């Protein structure tokens, strides 16, 4: 038994070293990438770009379900983005509250006939509205069909070749569209492009914009700031140099419409529609030998509210992981398949064996170490050393993400915010990480049960100029 425990422990250690070495590779690759992106961002002449008619027109797709609390502010903010040619298509996904009435009242909507083809099948559209006060706005009222279905309805109605999917509760920075289109101006063959999503909790929001970026004082949203920095600033930047990530955040990502239509739009049965879509895009473009890039650009920023309670966060993380499992299973034919190039041979194995299986292996590691220790097969110092190394890696990666933020965009200017970030980066390993592992582990159970539910997501609303907005918005997504 002693040998079995030692061998298993060693295997788990090797797994962690291999996985973390890959993270280290991403970390190294993120350095030249952030250097280049920061230089380009600093040198961009936005005034000239705003005046130029060269930039491609964009349709902003906004699915909305029971968003009464935030819909007027967020749509107003979207309509005042700094970009020359764009339209905003809001889809009321059969809301049970008065989201549509809010829109109708705020933007003086009037019904118009439908003037587009329903290329992607969706739930029945009840009516299409235009605004008397805002020519850029189109509102679609349809039967409830979920976020993916709403996005498909918005794609059908969109007029422009680029579409950007934005959650109704997401705050986009005014110059984010200009920054997102930089890669088009650099002549790259872009199929999709993702920007950074940051945590809005704790920030001061004024007129639908983040006026003052702060790191939340509460642990749970605060530690998610570090998580988001880690996921976006080095994870996705590193993937830029490895052939593109499999994820573009559903809260803020831009796609070429022709490719979206070619893959049949968003899949309504998926619980993580963004990951699923990007994998299908890779598959389609590789199969048809189309030259493309799916890069991540760090300086366009959207702010989103993250869960503040463990209950809601657990549901979100469980759903994300369930979606990852489903996507990896559905597209298993791409795994280690040279036909799909670096996506099949690098990204898919990483997401399958690294991201997807990591919680299983981590829990196995804890269990085996505990069993070995209980039966006196492993001594205490070895067990502690093992745990220390595993946690130390996580801390290093989190601190690196803070370094990248500090040398590049420096959104959190106050010393207190920096200290909080460092604190969360260190404390994350103690308790929080284990909780996320448990939530992700539960996702395997629910995935095998074939669960498709989104769960409940309670939003508190953004702090408005330091004053808490009391409205509560509850978003429940059906199957």
């Amino acid at each position, binding site marked *: 038994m002693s040998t079995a425990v030692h061998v298993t422990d060693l295997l788990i250690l090797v797994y962690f070293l291999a996985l973390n070495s890959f993270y280290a590779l991403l970390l190294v690759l993120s350095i030249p990438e952030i250097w280049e992106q920061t*230089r380009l961002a600093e040198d961009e002449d936005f005034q000239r770009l705003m005046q*130029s008619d060269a930039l491609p027109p964009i349709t902003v797709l906004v699915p909305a379900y029971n968003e009464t609390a935030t819909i007027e502010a967020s749509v107003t903010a979207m309509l005042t983005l700094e970009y020359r040619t764009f339209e905003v298509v809001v889809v009321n996904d059969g809301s049970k509250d008065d989201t549509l009435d809010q829109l109708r009242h705020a933007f003086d909507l009037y019904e118009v006939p439908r003037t587009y083809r329903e290329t992607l099948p969706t739930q029945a559209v009840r009516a299409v509205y235009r605004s008397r006060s805002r020519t850029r706005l189109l509102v679609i009222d349809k039967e409830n069909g979920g976020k993916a279905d709403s996005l498909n309805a918005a794609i059908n109605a969109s007029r422009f070749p680029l579409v950007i999917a934005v959650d109704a509760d997401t705050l986009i920075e005014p110059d984010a569209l200009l920054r997102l289109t930089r890669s088009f*101006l650099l002549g790259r063959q872009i199929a999709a492009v993702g920007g950074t999503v940051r945590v809005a909790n704790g920030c001061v929001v004024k007129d639908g914009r983040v006026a003052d970026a702060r790191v939340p004082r509460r642990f749970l949203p605060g530690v998610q700031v570090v998580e988001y920095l880690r996921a976006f600033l080095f994870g996705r930047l590193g993937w830029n140099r490895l052939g593109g990530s499999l994820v573009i955040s559903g809260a803020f990502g831009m796609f070429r419409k022709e490719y979206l239509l070619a893959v049949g739009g968003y899949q309504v049965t998926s619980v993580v529609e963004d990951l699923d879509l990007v994998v299908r895009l890779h598959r389609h473009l590789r199969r048809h030998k189309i030259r493309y890039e799916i890069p991540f650009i760090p300086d366009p920023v959207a702010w989103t509210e993250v869960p503040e309670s463990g209950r809601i966060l657990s549901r979100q993380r469980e759903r994300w992981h369930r979606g990852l499992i489903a996507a990896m299973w559905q597209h298993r034919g791409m795994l280690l398949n040279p036909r799909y190039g670096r996506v099949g041979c690098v990204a898919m194995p990483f997401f399958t064996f690294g991201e997807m299986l990591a919680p299983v292996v981590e829990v196995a590691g804890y269990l085996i170490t505990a069993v070995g220790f209980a039966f006196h097969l492993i001594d205490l110092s070895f067990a502690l*050393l093992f745990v220390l190394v595993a946690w*130390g890696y996580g801390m290093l990666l989190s601190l690196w993400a803070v370094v990248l933020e500090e040398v590049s965009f420096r959104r959190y200017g106050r010393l207190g915010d920096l200290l909080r970030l460092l604190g969360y980066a260190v404390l994350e390993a103690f308790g929080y990480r284990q909780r996320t592992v448990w939530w992700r582990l539960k996702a395997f159970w629910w995935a095998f049960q074939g669960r498709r539910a989104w769960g409940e997501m309670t939003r508190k609303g953004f702090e408005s100029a330091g004053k808490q907005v009391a409205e509560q918005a509850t978003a429940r997504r059906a199957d």
Partner: protein
Amino acid sequence: MTSRQFLVIVAAVQGVLLVALVVLIILNRWVRARRRAQLDPHRLELDAVMQRWALGQAQSDDVLRSLARLPAPLAIDALVTWSARIVSERWQELARGLEHQWWARLVRASSRSARWWKRLDAARFLSVVATPRDVGRVLRLLRDSHPAVQIAAATTLERVDSQLLVTAALEQLPFLGPTVQAYYASVLKRARPAVVRHLQLLFRRLNDPRLPRIIEFAGRLQEPALREGFTTLATHLDAEVRSQVARALGRFPHPESVAALSYLVQDEAWPVRAQAVRSLGMIGDPKTLPLVREALRDAEWWVRLRAGLALTRMGTTGRNGLLEAEVGADPDARDMARLILGLSPQALAEFAA
């Protein structure tokens, strides 16, 4: 080496790295704060001097002295920002003055640098203060391997009048992505005579695969001297060329344009038909009304949509055509007419845009 020893080594390395990262973060803050404290007064001083100079209350030498006190990238940023606010003659005076500044010479020399960001600095600098002596440098930067450098260099075309640069940019144009192409087009509009001359030459290269992109760009210029070139290309074998010609001709209300479009509206490729009927709507010649009404019965939805929209631009007769189609025998034309007649004026205007 045992697994324990290995773990100890890994843990020690991790510890060192953790401390190093924290020190790096704190040092970075400190260095930035110091640098900002040093540079901010110079930056504010430059803004003040620039403002006085723009009002004629300061000499260009004062501006040059203030610029020299800033690091080159910051000085370039300031020049780019202020270039849009100062009248051309005064700005050229500053550009001439910068030719003799040591730091400006270094920036010019970096157009040959192996580092792309140095070349980008040079291109941005030249985009606002290039003189005729810089044509060689700009030409090199236009052909740079880094697209950001190319784009910045292309901006120079707005300020420097050079046939050599225009020709180089136009030769590059078809190989560029659509967005970059549109950006080039916007900067090349300023150098119109030289551009038109070169385009007329390019129109004669009938077998050139770049021809569709050239026509697309030429159409954006809306230059009457190019109309004849477009009409001669209406019978080109490549449908993409014909489609671009059909699109471009809508901007030239002329009997020859109408004749060419009347031919193209019966093309075998539907994108050509759609563009031709759209252009006929833009010209609005009543003689073409039967053709547009015929297009309303086209097998392709997009052609029918364009025909319906074109009829709305052809006055009362066009509208009557739509009303007739709405109660006519052809189901496709009837549906499209209903759809178009139901559109608000605002929606029609947006479609037209």
